[in-house]
């Protein structure tokens, strides 16, 4: 993206790193993004951590956790020259929650280039978060050189295949899926036959009243296939989940909040802690979006609340960033 030379001129560059304080604060305007998820009576609600009305402060239930995504540690282009600071800001917001979340879900693109030092930095920052358990799924940036071997050594010790797994927390069943490896030319994200078989097996013994939370990096619904924002075998994935009364699908990858309800399934994509990407089709291609400050406020400044209550008491609330 071209630099806005006049508007974003660097005024004071004390550290000679190309960032002045004004530029840094501009990054911080959309920093610290994440979603707080609270399970209340089997119903999952999600709140933006940047919500100016502080709805999340009153949120209580039998289980709450936080989703963060796309920290892209190592990225240093103008769209955000300091991804360390913005991830720290996300952790600060998590730590400021009056009811500590039980755990953090990171929906991938932990690193920008799969470098060990990038993973190390994220690990170090997340150690300062109050929730001690962090569950990961890989993004395509985390499996660049070795089909994800390093990723699995770090984050996927007890996982299956390329890193998929499930666990139970307070009556809810969580499923972490991998849709970023073995991608085929011309295609979208993909889970593959082996993982789908596992998913069928993993879910078939659950009662249909079990709240199910599925998380994966690339959207498990076709947000915008022209930009690769979708998963080829998502229909088969969902066929194993549709009998459940409450299914929530949490994804990252597209660096913006979107949601969609289809029957009992609520799809939700999280914002990035690193940089925004354009709305589908609003630019020649996806990629880091550098925003002039007033455009940033216009785009992110309006709180847009969607409230959806289905027949089966499935609800998910979210808002765009301030």
């Amino acid at each position, binding site marked *: *993206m071209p630099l806005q030379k006049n508007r974003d001129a660097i005024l004071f560059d004390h550290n000679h790193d190309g960032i002045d304080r004004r530029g840094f604060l501009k990054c911080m305007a959309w920093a610290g993004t994440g979603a707080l998820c609270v399970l209340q009576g089997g119903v999952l609600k999600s709140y933006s951590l940047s919500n100016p009305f502080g709805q999340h402060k009153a949120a209580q239930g039998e289980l709450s956790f936080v989703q963060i995504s796309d920290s892209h540690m190592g*990225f240093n*282009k103008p*769209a955000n020259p300091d991804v360390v600071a913005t991830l720290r800001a996300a952790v600060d917001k998590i730590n400021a929650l009056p009811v500590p979340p039980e755990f953090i879900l990171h929906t991938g693109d932990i690193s*920008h*280039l*799969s470098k060990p030092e990038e993973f190390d930095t994220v690990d170090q920052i997340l150690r300062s978060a109050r929730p001690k358990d962090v569950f990961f799924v890989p993004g*395509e*940036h985390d499996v*660049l*050189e070795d089909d994800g071997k390093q990723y699995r050594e770090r984050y996927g010790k007890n996982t299956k295949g390329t890193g998929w797994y499930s666990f139970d927390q307070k009556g809810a069943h969580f499923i972490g899926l991998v849709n970023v490896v073995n*991608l*085929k*030319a*011309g*295609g*979208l994200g993909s889970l593959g036959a082996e993982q789908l078989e596992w998913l069928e097996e993993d879910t078939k013994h659950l009662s249909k009243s079990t709240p199910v939370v599925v998380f994966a990096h690339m959207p498990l619904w076709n947000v915008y*296939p*022209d*930009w*690769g924002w979708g998963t080829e075998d998502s229909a088969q994935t969902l066929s194993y989940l549709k009998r459940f009364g409450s299914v929530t699908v949490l994804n990252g990858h597209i660096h913006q909040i979107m949601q969609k309800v289809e029957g009992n399934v609520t799809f939700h994509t999280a914002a990035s802690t690193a940089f925004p990407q354009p709305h589908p089709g609003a630019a*020649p*291609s*996806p*990629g*880091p979006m550098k925003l002039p400050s007033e455009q940033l406020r216009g785009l992110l400044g309006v709180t847009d609340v969607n409230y959806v209550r289905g027949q089966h008491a499935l609800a998910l609330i979210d808002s765009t960033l301030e």
Partner: protein
Amino acid sequence: MKTGNSILSFAAAMVLALVALPVAERAAAAGPSTAGVKTAEVKIDNFSFTPVTLTVKAGMQITWTNADDIPHTVVSEDQAFKSKALDTDDRFTFTASKPGTYSYFCSIHPRMTGKLVVE
């Protein structure tokens, strides 16, 4: 990175350039010869390869350069060539020694596809 294995005279290289880069293909740049080896370039920009189809003569050296702020790869479907992840301004060079049609893609963003035709 692979390097060229044949040395051509400057004159021969000029002839090759005319033959190897049809106008319709609009190669991003018919690069200057390096040590006598004829080169061609593919630009990676806005999540696409330009030109999307490049036709070269056997022995030419093709260089892909990533101009995006996001890493990409260049991987032929038959694995004849495979780059590492290319960060911004990183380059990958392949010497086309064997004639054929090579369909390739970015293994990180598989919607990005291109074709290299070696005559």
